[in-house]
């Protein structure tokens, strides 16, 4: 993304195309333009915050003021395999069957 001297951030068409590719979204050329505009406006709003003095203010990690939401390490029921696999597009030998994987992640 292009960062301008006045801290305004603009999202280019190629930014949108890149993110769409990563998210496996097929966008039309019109949509690419539309989202570039919308995302620029949203980021523009966020840059307003940069004008404030935020030294010493921690980033918000969670909207609620809660920490340490934990559960005990106790085994609970799992789902029935046949039921789960019946909902999958394809299954074989108790496993989910997926198309050929092209490369390693």
């Amino acid at each position, binding site marked *: 993304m292009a960062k301008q001297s006045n801290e305004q951030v603009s999202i280019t068409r190629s930014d949108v195309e*890149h*993110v769409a*590719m*990563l*998210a*496996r979204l097929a966008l039309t050329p019109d949509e690419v333009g539309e989202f570039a505009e919308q995302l620029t406006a949203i980021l523009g709003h966020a840059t307003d915050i940069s004008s404030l003095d935020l030294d010493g203010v*921690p980033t918000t*990690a*969670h*909207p*609620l003021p*809660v*920490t*340490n*939401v*934990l*559960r*005990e*390490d*106790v*085994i*609970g*029921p*799992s*789902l029935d*395999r046949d039921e*789960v*696999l019946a909902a999958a597009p394809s299954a*074989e*030998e*108790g*496993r*989910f*069957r*997926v*198309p*050929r*994987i*092209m*490369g*390693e*992640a």
Partner: protein
Amino acid sequence: MSSNEVQAEIQYETVIGLEVHVELATKTKLFCACANEFGSEPNTNICPVCLGLPGSLPVLNERVVDFALRIGEALNFTVPQRSIFHRKNYFYPDMPKDFQTSQYDEPICAEGWIEVDGERIGIERAHMEEDTGKSTHVGGGGRIHDADHSLVDYNRAGVPLMEIVSHPAMRSSEQARGYVSELRAVLLAIGVSDVKMEEGSMRVDANVSIRPVGTTQLGTKVEIKNMNSIRSLGRAIDYEVERQTIATNTGERIVQETRHWDESEGITHGMRSKEGSSDYRFFPEPDLAPVAPTDEMRAAARAAIPELPAALRERIVAEWQVAEHDARVLVANPALSDYAQESVAALASGSARDVVNWCTGELLAYGNETGSEPNSWALSPIALAELVGLVGDGAISRSQAKEVLAGCLAGEGAPSDVASARGLAQVSDEGALAAIIAGVLEANPDAVAEYRTGDEKAQKKKRGFLMGEAMKASKGQGNPALLNRLLDAGLA
């Protein structure tokens, strides 16, 4: 080699950083109550959370946090007041949610170190994350690129991992191996993982680069994966260093890539990489609250940590007078070192060193062969102390003790009972042994003569022969120390 060639030869140093993933030995997964169990039937430990079904919500396992804090304590980490989870976004069939929940810029453990052979190796971070599922490739010889399709088992998806990332602080494969074995010993001792490289509960990836000696800038690093033992880690690093050195010397450029270690061929292969896959678009996980370790949580983790391997080794070497190597072998196996400590505490006679010798020799082999843990053995630590005492007192010989040990492990009873039931006893009757020696000397006049006239080498040989004859004549039951003394007297 001409002097020009010597000058042209640039000396390189190796720079190694290690990323170690360990599966935590919890009962359940990281964010759901499915069993964390190796070897279950495929897809039997799955639920809406670990399958990433819409509307499901993760809840953090408290034992994972406790284990992470133990790791923080044992590896000298700074544990910040707050740590948070991030989503690491990518598409791959083994991750049903299309993102991995991991930690990014606020890990639970930041900046620690471990001492390896007297040197501190810096550790950049350690963070909690979830494991992926397991794919099996069908057709094409099981290779991913040639496969017809793949089958996925999500039992492992969501199993808790700690990823421990060292600084690029190591300079040789030997040091890297030392780092991993020390790390392994510590993780075993603090009870957070069974750290079995062969079974994948500990996975080590190595970042390897070379640079001219005397320079400080890091060279282009290559990541090597798929080493399933500490030995293969060393081999893979050595191979990669040689490959990079040859490439650099012949003017080839090293490319940043991931390479796969092939154990049978002893080489690394480049892997085809997915385009743009390094753009993971990390963002904070909105469904999980930050982890803020309290004083109580930290104190509980600290209290759960036993004497660490380095300190334990030092103590054993000093107090029990055993070799550093033997202490290392013993301490690498916490259950066995607990066993040895209990046994030494029960010793009436005989030495702690003998206890260690049995533990790191016959007993370690027995445990490996039978796949059994010391606490299930028919020979208790106290019984081992008794056995060591029988040898120390001269009641049975060392070779007889082996037979007694086998009998005890087979459940035949206490050492003294096994020894008497099998008729094993050492003859320490000086009169009887003196008669044996006299008989042997009389029956072998030639050997005695050669002993008396021979050089040192010949003397040694003849003495050994006569001792063997004497032992034979005592049916293997003569007290060797006594026989030795009587033989010396007879030959004088």
